[in-house]
């Protein structure tokens, strides 16, 4: 088949070209490289849509794993390749990434160019490279390629978070983001090596009969052992190692600490990082190799618990933050926690659904925050805002749509996806995996906090009386800010329609389009929904996930939706009572000591710094002493022995020719005498 699928590499190469153009020619161009980026991402979006359309109308996928082989494995050793894997999941993600990236580029015209920033070619080059890395990561056909672009995504986030490198905060935040995610990536790398070593024939491929999930399944069936471990244990260990990278990138507890600091970067970059590229990469990776994780109930349980805990943990911290972007940062961590919870709880479609809706509404919220920040002359403290509702209506209404989606209020996009996440976890928890109910409880509790902090943010920012001079007379924003907001605002309202599972369950109408879409994946790929979650899918057969209901299927749907919606509304109402007043005060002071803990983020940073300075540093110093004293000591000792003996021996070289002749003669005589003695001449 020719056409769209042949052009898939171009989707990533276009932003790469924009990167090169912006870097080398950006300063001569009218918008400093922005136009190249916009053109490239628009091209990527069009190509991605075409690919998605081809997936929808064609046979559902395209797998070309050995497009370029850079190391040919001989006789059972691994082959390293670059390839393209397009299935409904990656096609969907390509559309999301290129759409968000395009809107972020347009928004940057308002946020960066109109604000008179310097160094813009570097900025747009960074955005281009970021988009390129993420798009290539999305269509990667094997684990090694995914790892390579995963790392490149991390590098780009470093470059962009530290964009304002002359200030004090951003370089430090960039380094933190790089190091914390790299800590996770270290485990990921070991996991990649483990998977390549366990299944050398698979070459790390994600899809197809020879892929590593398929071989792992076969290994469990045949009772194969790996290095003395049975297949289940080996798969669990490899899965958890890869999960380390996921937790770093997707900011899951305890590797979430980089993300709030990453707010030091330009706001459009935050939008890109949080919605479509960096943070989404982790969750996408789990979804990509779901066939592998679904084989191990323990790995799924870990994912679900880490996700559920992170969702609740981050949501509580979002409650007390004073800066707009900080609240959003913690909400991102929390929402990615939901996606992990869904993946761990057997809700593959739910996780992808939440990934999609979250990409839209979180990009919207960040761009809205960016608009507010422009208006407030880069003051992000919500206590200096207030009353912006009437002064910037477009921003207000779109931000409100995004907030309703984030809080999970009916019928905005976030309600449908979050409800499905919780529903999937609940039914599997009520089935044979009761431990999931713990994750469900944490996720459910987080819904309340989400509603509260979201609307605390909205009310503090937009309602009440202006609390500073700038808020009285905010700087107006232009079309290039309002345009992306409008697009995303509309999407946040309607995007839930792609997968209205509760409506389907109640009325029987087949409107779970996302489910059908993801299920279109060709059977040969082994990445379809029914392969994972069908009646005899991997989740049922290997992870032992079964469905249980409280009061029949319909009853469970209604009860689950009602409880989560009720909790969200309760949070919103509490925020309304406390903060929708002309002169709000800091009610969080009433939390007492809890507030101090929350403001300090549960002392996560402190203990991680302690780990570095109190534990790692002494170990490193001891190792340094060993290296300097013992290892270098041996080497230096050997060299001083030879230097000392050389200093003595060189005395025989007098420079007098007669002495050399004498030595030669003596040597010859001795040699002859020795030969004579040994040869028995005498």
């Amino acid at each position, binding site marked *: 088949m020719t056409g769209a699928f042949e052009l898939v590499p171009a989707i990533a190469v276009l932003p790469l070209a924009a990167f090169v153009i912006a870097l080398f020619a950006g300063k001569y161009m009218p918008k400093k490289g922005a136009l190249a980026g916009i053109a490239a991402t628009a091209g990527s979006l069009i190509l991605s849509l075409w690919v998605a359309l081809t997936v929808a109308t064609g046979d559902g996928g395209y797998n070309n794993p050995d497009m370029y082989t850079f190391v040919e494995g001989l006789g059972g050793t691994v082959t390293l390749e670059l390839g393209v894997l397009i299935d409904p999941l990656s096609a969907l993600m390509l559309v999301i990434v290129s759409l968000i990236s395009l809107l972020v580029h347009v928004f940057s015209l308002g946020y960066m160019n109109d604000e008179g920033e310097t160094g813009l070619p570097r900025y747009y080059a960074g955005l281009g490279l970021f988009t390129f890395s993420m798009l290539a990561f999305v269509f990667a056909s094997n684990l090694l390629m995914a790892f390579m672009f995963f790392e490149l995504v991390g590098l780009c986030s470093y470059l962009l978070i530290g964009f304002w490198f002359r200030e004090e905060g951003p370089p430090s935040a960039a380094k933190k983001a790089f190091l914390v995610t790299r800590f996770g990536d270290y485990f990921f790398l070991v996991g990649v090596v483990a998977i390549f070593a366990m299944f050398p024939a698979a070459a790390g491929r994600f899809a197809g009969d020879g892929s590593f999930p398929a071989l792992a399944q076969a290994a469990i069936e045949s009772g194969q052992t790996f290095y003395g471990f049975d297949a289940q244990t080996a798969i669990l260990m490899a899965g958890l190692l890869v999960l380390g990278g996921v937790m770093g990138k997707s900011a899951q507890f305890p590797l979430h600490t980089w993300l709030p600091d990453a707010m030091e970067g330009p706001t459009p970059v935050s939008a890109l990082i949080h919605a479509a590229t960096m943070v989404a990469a982790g969750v996408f990776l789990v979804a990509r190799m779901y066939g592998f994780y679904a084989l191990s109930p323990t790995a799924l349980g870990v994912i679900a618990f880490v996700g559920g805990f992170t969702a609740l943990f981050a949501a509580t911290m979002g409650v007390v933050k004073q800066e707009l972007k900080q609240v959003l940062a913690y909400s991102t961590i929390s929402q990615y926690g939901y996606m992990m919870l869904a993946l761990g709880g057997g809700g593959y479609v739910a996780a992808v659904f939440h990934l999609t809706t979250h990409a839209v509404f979180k990009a919207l919220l960040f761009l809205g925050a960016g608009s507010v920040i422009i208006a407030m002359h880069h003051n992000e403290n919500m206590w200096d805002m207030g009353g912006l509702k009437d002064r910037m209506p477009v921003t207000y209404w779109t931000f409100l749509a995004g907030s309703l989606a984030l809080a999970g209020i009916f019928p905005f996009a976030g309600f449908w996806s979050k409800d499905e996440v919780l529903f999937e976890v609940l039914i599997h928890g009520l089935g044979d995996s009761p431990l999931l109910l713990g994750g469900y409880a944490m996720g459910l509790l987080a819904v309340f906090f989400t509603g509260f902090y979201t609307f605390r943010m909205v009310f503090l920012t937009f309602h009440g009386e202006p609390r500073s001079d700038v808020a009285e007379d905010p700087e107006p924003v232009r079309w290039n800010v309002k345009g992306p907001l409008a697009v995303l605002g509309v999407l946040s309202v309607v995007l839930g329609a792609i997968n209205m599972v509760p409506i389907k369950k109640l009325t029987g109408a087949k409107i779970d389009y996302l489910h059908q879409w993801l299920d279109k994946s060709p059977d040969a790929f082994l990445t379809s929904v029914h392969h994972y979650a069908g009646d005899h899918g991997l989740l049922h057969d290997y992870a032992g996930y079964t469905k249980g209901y409280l009061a029949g299927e319909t009853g469970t749907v209604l009860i689950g939706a009602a409880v989560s919606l009720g909790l969200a509304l309760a949070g919103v109402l509490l925020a309304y009572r406390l903060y929708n007043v002309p002169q709000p005060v800091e009610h969080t002071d009433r939390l007492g000591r809890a507030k101090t803990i929350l403001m300090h983020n549960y002392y996560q940073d402190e203990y991680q710094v302690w780990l570095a300075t109190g534990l790692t540093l002494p170990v490193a110093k001891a190792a340094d002493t060993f290296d300097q004293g013992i290892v270098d000591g041996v080497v230096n000792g050997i060299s001083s022995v030879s230097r000392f003996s050389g200093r003595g021996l060189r005395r025989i070289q007098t420079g007098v020719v007669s002495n050399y002749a*004498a030595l030669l003669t003596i040597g010859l005589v001795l040699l002859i005498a020795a030969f004579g003695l040994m040869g028995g001449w005498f």
Partner: protein
Amino acid sequence: MIDVQWYLLLSAGLFCIGLFGILTRRNALIFLMSVELMLNAANINLIAFSQHFGHVDGQVFALFGMALAAAEVAIGLGIILVLYRNFGDIDVTAPTTMRW
């Protein structure tokens, strides 16, 4: 016919005279002459055995040895000239700069 051992005694004597010259004298010209003596001692050896065994190989080698000696003298005299130019003397113990 003279027996081969007499030739060997002659060549050993010549060689020892040359060696004695090298070990005891300091004049570079005497050095060169001593080296010539030692080379010719070797040539006598070669020719003696050539005659003893009835092969011409040894004589050919002796010719090579003479050519070698001529070349060596050319280089040796060059070295002596440089020695004189730099040190004002042809005493071989004078140039001791080529050491540690």
